[in-house]
């Protein structure tokens, strides 16, 4: 089976000319090969091209009366500087000097987890979570911005907001050669 019948059709005995009976079976091996090749191609082409969406919700700028008063002692401000650098401080600006940090497991992620615990321990509940303010300077890149939002997602910080950077904070970055 699966091959074309190439036998002579019974030889030439008797002088009678017989028409050759061709087998209806075709070798499908090549066709199967081709089909699987195409399947492989389509599997590769589909799964590799799937972008992911990071959903973000921003405060409504058109409504002025929805701003909640934020206790300064519970805020941590993260400044994004040039060349993928980070500087952060806790509390009101200028009270504590900013600490320079970097992205990665032992960098900002550790800091976020530690500070969150510290703030939760030093404030009475129930609303004692840390509020992170992300301030991206003009020298920071979009990648840093996405990375810091991702770190906030990973560390499970309940509350964070993106705020415009102020001149004194740019000064802080400049003092640390990050701007």
């Amino acid at each position, binding site marked *: 089976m699966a*091959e074309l019948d190439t036998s002579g059709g019974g030889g030439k005995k008797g002088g009678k000319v017989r028409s050759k009976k061709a087998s209806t079976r075709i070798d499908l091996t090549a066709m199967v090969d081709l089909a699987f090749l195409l399947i492989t191609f389509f599997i590769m082409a589909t799964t590799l091209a799937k972008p992911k969406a990071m959903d973000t919700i921003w405060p409504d*700028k058109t409504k002025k009366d929805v701003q909640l008063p934020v206790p300064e002692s519970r805020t941590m401000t993260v400044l994004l500087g040039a060349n993928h650098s980070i500087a952060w401080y806790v509390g009101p600006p200028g009270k504590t000097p900013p600490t320079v940090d970097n992205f990665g497991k032992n960098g900002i992620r550790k800091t976020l987890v530690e500070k969150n615990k510290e703030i939760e321990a030093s404030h009475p509940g129930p609303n004692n979570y840390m509020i992170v303010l992300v301030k991206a300077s003009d020298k920071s*890149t979009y990648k*840093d911005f996405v990375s810091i939002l991702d770190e906030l997602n990973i560390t499970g910080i309940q509350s964070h907001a993106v705020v415009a950077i102020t001149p004194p904070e740019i000064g802080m970055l400049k003092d640390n050669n990050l701007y």
Partner: protein
Amino acid sequence: MARIKIPRKSTAIDMTAMCDVAFLLLTFFILTAKLKQEDPLRVDVPASTVKVNVPDVDMATITVGHGKVFFGLEGTDLRKSLLEEIGKKYSTSFTPEEIQKFSLIPTFGVPVNTLKQYLALSTDDKKKYTQPGIPVDTTTNSELFNWIYEARVVTKNLHNKELRFAIKGDSREQYPEIGKIIDVLQKQAVNKFSLITSLNQGK
């Protein structure tokens, strides 16, 4: 003495069933596949650990890279009425052929005043042509603002759904460029949108 006869079996196997299965799977993959479309503006999206896929319908993508802004809207029916509305707004009338051509372009980055010339180009010329990007500024009358606004209107009218937005930014892009787009979106009270990232499994 009788010799034991070992029957000789054919090595050929019936491939029919295998072929059936292979083609069934092939058909399935072809039908479900959404092939990677070539972006007119190539951007290197940043990586994150987010695992949520980008939705396919009622979706607008704003691509930012190399200082240019491109706008894309899913759905040919939406794109058709979007161009009609934009034509009304900028008092340019687009012919049915131009609307048809526009509905086949998923992402574009040309100002409205050169849109007619761009649509007149052949497919090959369109690929060669470097699109200058959509003009953006912080006023409420910039072209990007109007594209976004009209896209929301037509989605609401045709599909009765809120249009979702995604920003696809190049990772090397400076933050103010992205901030500008976010400002444009927030000016029309679009406060929920996605940032497109690629999956980072290394961390």
